[in-house]
């Protein structure tokens, strides 16, 4: 069941990464690399609608079909509507499916309500121009008739009164009569949100000002912080504007559908279930890896590079069950990072170490624009190419990233050296390959052997526990 490597998407031109022509070789091109399909690891994985034979037509159809069940009668022809997106959606499968969903939402709203003042507002995290880059790349500005904008958390704010006090949103997110929350169910930073209110989280992140984000990451603790987004969403200010939510439903194999609802919490429960089930299996499997050289090879900042839907930051924490809320502190969150003293030792007991299975990281292609020095301080890292090192050195968020890294001229040299010092030939590439893991043959065989046991453990033991911790009755989804 080991196959030829799946070629990853090409590098993306962006101010946050090196020019595509400087990425001279991809991990998938290394000798001895193979691919393990998600469906070979987990034969019960949900079928995907994209990628597939009918391409983006499937996304358009699914969005239209799902939106049929949504009430849009509150939107009158003279009203304004902000369709709210987030930059992360565009990192999924090259971004085209998310862009297609955003286009379809506009069409449906226009057809059903007669409303013409429909705008697209796309939030970002720490790379303030990233959404602007995607809007341009996918022609969304034209599609939304010049009314598409990237919004950043330092832009003008608006105070939002909530159950726990005043929090702050971005003014341009809320400057319409109605808002439509257009997001995706990709689990991504489970180390931060712990799959608690995943579908609500953008109200405390992508649509929020720096004060709110800082509250989430500094004021409430690694698990309580998830309440920030709910507090904002539940506020009278947001409720008065909220029309519906439309989500691209993701799994480690690809897009499994589109879901839409006027009730965000009902959608949230479905997102929680699917996320825990599908990503839960993949993360538990990655947690079984005993040793590996990890290659970063995807157009995203260091923690966000993907392997079968799982980001590198979560592999760095895969020595813990990130879904288990009884475990207070994952090996990597900003709370965890804050708890290390200047000597590199934890300030308190119980700070879990970064996944010791990661022997060496090879930074073949990853962006700046996210504080990532934590990773190079904790894991031996080799950066490929001077241009890449220079990019990080110029990044205000990564002034000490290369302090602890080695520099290699090319990928082959880096891999040879890594194998020698790590004493392993197991390689795992975080290259965003779709529906598959690109790995060395030895690791591929290892994963195929471990997967059935992991699958049984998640279905029988872990999934019911994870759902109960989140207030979801497992019997609702026929799990007991």
């Amino acid at each position: 069941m080991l196959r030829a490597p799946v070629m990853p998407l090409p590098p993306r031109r962006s101010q946050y990464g090196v020019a595509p022509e400087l990425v001279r070789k991809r991990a998938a091109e290394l000798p001895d690399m193979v691919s393990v399909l998600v469906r070979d690891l987990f034969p019960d994985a949900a079928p995907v609608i994209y990628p597939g034979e009918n391409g983006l037509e499937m996304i358009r159809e699914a969005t239209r079909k799902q939106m049929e069940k949504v009430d849009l009668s509150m939107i009158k022809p003279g009203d304004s509507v902000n369709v709210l997106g987030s930059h992360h959606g565009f990192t999924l499968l090259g971004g085209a499916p998310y862009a297609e969903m955003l286009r379809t939402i506009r069409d449906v709203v226009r057809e059903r309500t007669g409303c013409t003042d429909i705008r697209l507002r796309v939030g970002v995290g720490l790379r303030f121009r990233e959404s602007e880059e995607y809007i341009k790349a996918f022609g969304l500005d034209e599609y939304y008739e010049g009314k598409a904008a990237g919004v950043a958390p330092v832009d003008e704010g608006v105070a939002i009164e909530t159950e726990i006090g005043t929090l702050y949103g971005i003014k341009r997110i809320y400057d319409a009569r109605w808002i439509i929350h257009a997001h995706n169910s990709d689990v991504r930073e489970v180390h931060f949100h712990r799959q608690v209110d995943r579908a609500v989280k953008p109200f405390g992140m992508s649509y929020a000002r720096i004060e709110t984000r800082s509250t989430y990451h500094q004021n409430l603790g690694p698990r309580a912080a998830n309440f920030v987004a709910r507090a904002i969403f539940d506020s009278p200010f947001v409720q008065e504007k909220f029309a519906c939510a439309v989500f691209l439903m993701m799994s480690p194999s690809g897009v499994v559908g589109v879901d839409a609802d006027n009730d965000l919490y009902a959608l949230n429960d479905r997102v929680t279930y699917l996320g825990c089930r599908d990503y839960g299996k993949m993360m538990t499997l990655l947690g079984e890896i005993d040793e590996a050289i990890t290659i970063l090879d995807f157009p995203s900042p260091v923690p966000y590079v993907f392997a079968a839907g799982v980001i590198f930051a979560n592999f760095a924490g895969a020595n813990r069950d990130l879904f288990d809320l009884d475990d207070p502190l994952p090996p990597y969150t900003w709370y965890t990072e804050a708890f290390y003293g200047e000597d590199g030792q934890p300030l308190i007991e119980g700070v879990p170490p970064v996944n010791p299975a990661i022997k060496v990281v090879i930074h073949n292609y990853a962006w700046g624009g996210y504080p990532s020095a934590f990773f190079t301080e904790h894991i031996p890292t080799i950066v490929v190419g001077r241009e890449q090192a220079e990019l990080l050195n110029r990044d205000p968020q990564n002034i000490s990233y290369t302090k602890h890294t080695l520099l290699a001229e090319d990928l082959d040299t880096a891999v040879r050296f890594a194998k020698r010092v790590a004493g392993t030939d197991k390689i795992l590439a975080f290259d965003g390959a779709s529906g598959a893991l690109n790995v060395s043959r030895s690791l591929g065989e290892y994963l195929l052997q471990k997967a059935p046991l992991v699958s049984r453990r998640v279905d029988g033991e872990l999934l019911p526990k994870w759902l109960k911790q989140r207030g979801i009755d497992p019997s609702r989804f026929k799990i007991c």
Partner: protein
Amino acid sequence: MRAVTLYAVVDVDKCKGCTRCERVCPVLAIKVENKKAVVDPQNCLGCANCEQRCPEMAITMAPLEQSRVVHESLAEVDMAAVIDLCRRAHLHPKQIICYCTATRAGEVAAAVLRGAKSPEEISRRTGVRTGCKVECIQPVLRLLHAAGIAPERPARGYQWYGLTPTVWDIPEEVKKKYAQRGFYFDEDRKLLDSLVGAGEKGGE
């Protein structure tokens, strides 16, 4: 601590004088004069906030001929006062509060004790808020608040809006209402308290 290696350069032909850069600069180092943005290179910490938000793409970041380090020294400060201020803000002096610059609470507390009265002044002295510019405003405001200082917001600026709640402020009825939905308020408060109260390993 912040190593400063870059500074902002304005292309005056492109600048339309919209003042966006002035409103987002965390250290007030860029100002619009006669409808053109002007950078004070002595004070610019190279954070690229202005470059990232200028609607005209009129700003680029250029390397400084000589890099410098911005740092509030803890050498001659009353450490007991630093520890006390941090604890009142529910912070451990050695905990990182700015992930990009690895600035720790103690350094910011020292800046406050030495007279910094606003987030902008604190940023100028420690470099905090000049990396991602997003995540560290609350601990800065918490430390000022704990010192009894109510800073004044830059007029019309977007640098910051206000102090927000902490886990120590969550009303009991909110905790009760959401207890079954995966929000671990009391448990996380306990975790943060254990850090705040952790041994003087961090405080010395």
